C-alpha cells in the first residue's frame, strides 16, 4: 500500500518536473525562465532524494540551484546592462579588439 502512495508521489513529482522543464524552456521572459530553473533544480534535489542519492541531492541543491541560479541572474543583469548601451570606460580591451581585421590600422602601428 505504501508502494502505491510512493508511485503516486513519483507521478506527481515527474509531472511537476516535466511541467517546470517545459515552462522554463518555453516561457518568453528569460528572467522568469531562470527563476523557474532554480525551482526546477530544487525539485530535482527532491527527486534525487527519492532516488536514494543524498550526495547528488546535496550537490544539486548547492550547485544546481544554489549557484547556477545566481550565475544566470548575474549574467542576465550583465546582459541587460550591455543592452542599455552602457559602456565601461576603464579597460582598453573593450574598445573593439578586432583591429587585426583592419589592415590600415595594423600597418599604421
Amino acid at each position, binding site marked *: 500500500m505504501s508502494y502505491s502512495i510512493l508511485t503516486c508521489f513519483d507521478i506527481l513529482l515527474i509531472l511537476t518536473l516535466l511541467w517546470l522543464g517545459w515552462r522554463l524552456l518555453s516561457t518568453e521572459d528569460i528572467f522568469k525562465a531562470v527563476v523557474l530553473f532554480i525551482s526546477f533544480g530544487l525539485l530535482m534535489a527532491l527527486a534525487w532524494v527519492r532516488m536514494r542519492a543524498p550526495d547528488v541531492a546535496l550537490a544539486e541543491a548547492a550547485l544546481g540551484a544554489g549557484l547556477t541560479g545566481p550565475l544566470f541572474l548575474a549574467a542576465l543583469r550583465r546582459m541587460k546592462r550591455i543592452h542599455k548601451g552602457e559602456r565601461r570606460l576603464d579597460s*582598453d*580591451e573593450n574598445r*573593439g*579588439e578586432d583591429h*587585426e581585421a583592419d*589592415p590600415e590600422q595594423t600597418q599604421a602601428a
Partner: protein
Amino acid sequence: MIFLHADTPAWMLFPIVLPLIAGLLCFLFSRRTFVIALAAVLANFLVVCLLIYQLLVFGSMRCHMGGWQPPLGISLRTDGPALLMLLMTAVTGLAITLYARGYFSYRIFDPPRAGRHQRQQRFFWPLWMLLLAGLNGLFLSNDIFNIYVTLELIGISAASLAALSGKPASQLASFRYLLISLLGSLTYLLGIVFLYRSCGVLDLDLLQNLSNNGPGVRAALALMSVGLLLKTALFPLHFWLPPAHANALAPVSAILSALVVKGSFYLLFRFWFEIFPSTITTPALNFMGTLGAAAILWGAIQAMRQHRLKLMVAYSTVSQLGYLFIAFPLARVDGSAQLWSIVIFMALAHSCAKSAMFMVAGTVFLHLGHDRIKDLSGVRATLPITVFAYGIAGVSLMGLPPSGAFIAKWMLLSSSLASSQWWWALVVMSGSLLAMIYVFRVMSRFFVIPEGVSFIRPAPFSPLLEWPALALALISLFLGLVAPWPLHILSQGSTALAQSFPGGLP
C-alpha cells in the same frame, strides 16, 4: 619506494600528469611560463618515445589507477594506435609550443596592443597545457566514463583557446563551439548511460569481451557516435568548425585543427572497429563513407571559394576529415588492421601539414596584417621559408608522393579497387585535385611580384615563427618514406585487432 623501470606501466601516466602540473604552474606564475611549458612538452615527447620503446619490447600494457582492477577502477593502456596518436600530439605540440613563443613575442613587440597580447600569452600557456593533458588522457584512457571527463577537459580548454583572440567573431564562434562540444559530450554521456544500463561495466576491455549486441548497446553506440561526430565536425555537422578555427589565434588554430578533432575521431574509430565490431553493420559503414565523401567534396569546394587564407585552411580541414571516414566502408574487405593504418597515416600527415599551414597563415598575418588571398603577392620574397613550408604542407594535403597522406591514399585506393568499390577511389582522386586547386590558388598569389617592385627585402628573420612550420611540413612530407616504422608500431600490441576481424567483417 617504487622506482620506475623500463617496463613499469606507470610511465604512461607522465604524458598526462606532466602537462597537468605544467598547466597549474603556468597558471600560478606569470613569468617563465614558456620555459615551464617547453619543459613539459619536451619531457612529454621523451616519455612518449620511451613508451614506444616499451611497446616494442614488452608489448601492450595496462596501468590501473590506484591499483584497482577494472571493473572497479580506471585503467590506462598503451597500444600501437594510441601511441602513434600520442606521438603525433607530442611532435605537433612541440612545434606549436615553439611557434606560439615566436608568435607571442612578435606580437608583444607591437606596443599599442601589447597589453592585450600579454594577456593572450598569459592565458594561452595554462590552457594549452591542460588541453595537452586532456588529449593525452583521451588517447590513453581505457574507461568510457573517464573518456567523457577528458572530452570535457578538451572541450572547455579548446573553446577558451578559440576565444582568446578577443575578436567578436572569434567569441561568437567560440560560444557556438562550446555549446556544440557540450551537446556532443551530453549525447556521448547519454550513450554511456545506455551502455552502463545494458552492460554494467565501464572498462573498454570488459566491454569488448562482453561483445553484447543488444539494442541497448546499439543505441549507445549510435548516441556516442553522434556525439563524437559533432565534435569531429563530419559533414554536415561541420558548420561550427570553420569560424571557430579561422578566427582563433594562429597557434590555437593549429592546435584545434591538428589535434582536437583527431581526439574525438580516434575514439569513434576505436569504438566502431575495436570495442563494438559486432554491432556495426554494412549500411552504417556505407553511410559513414558517404558522409565522408560529401565532406571531402563540400569542404574542398568551400575552401576554393574562400577569400581569406585561414578560412580556406579551416575548410580544408573539413575536407581532409572526410578522408578519415571514407575508409570506413573498406572495413568489409581488409579488416581493421589495414583500416587503422589508413586512418592513422591520414591523421598523422594531416596533423603535421595542417598545423604547418595554420602557422604559415599566422606568420603571413603577422607580417601583412591581413590574410586576404588576393593581396598576398610578394610574400614569397619576404618570407621565403614560410612560403616553402606552405608549399610542402600543400603537397602533403594533396596527397602527392612521398607524403604520408599519399601512403594513406594509396591504401585507400587499392582497398577500394580491390573490393570493387571504385566510387570511393574516384572521390579520393577528385578530392586531391580540388585540394590542388585551393592550395595553388594561394601559392600562385605568393609568387606574384607586386607591380613596380623590383626587389623585395626579406622580412626580419624570426626563427621561431618560420622553422616549426617548415619542420612540421617536412615531417608530413617524409612520413611516407619512413612508413614502415609507424606501421611496425601499429602492428605491435594490436594483435587483438587482427583477431577481432579474422576474415573481414560480414
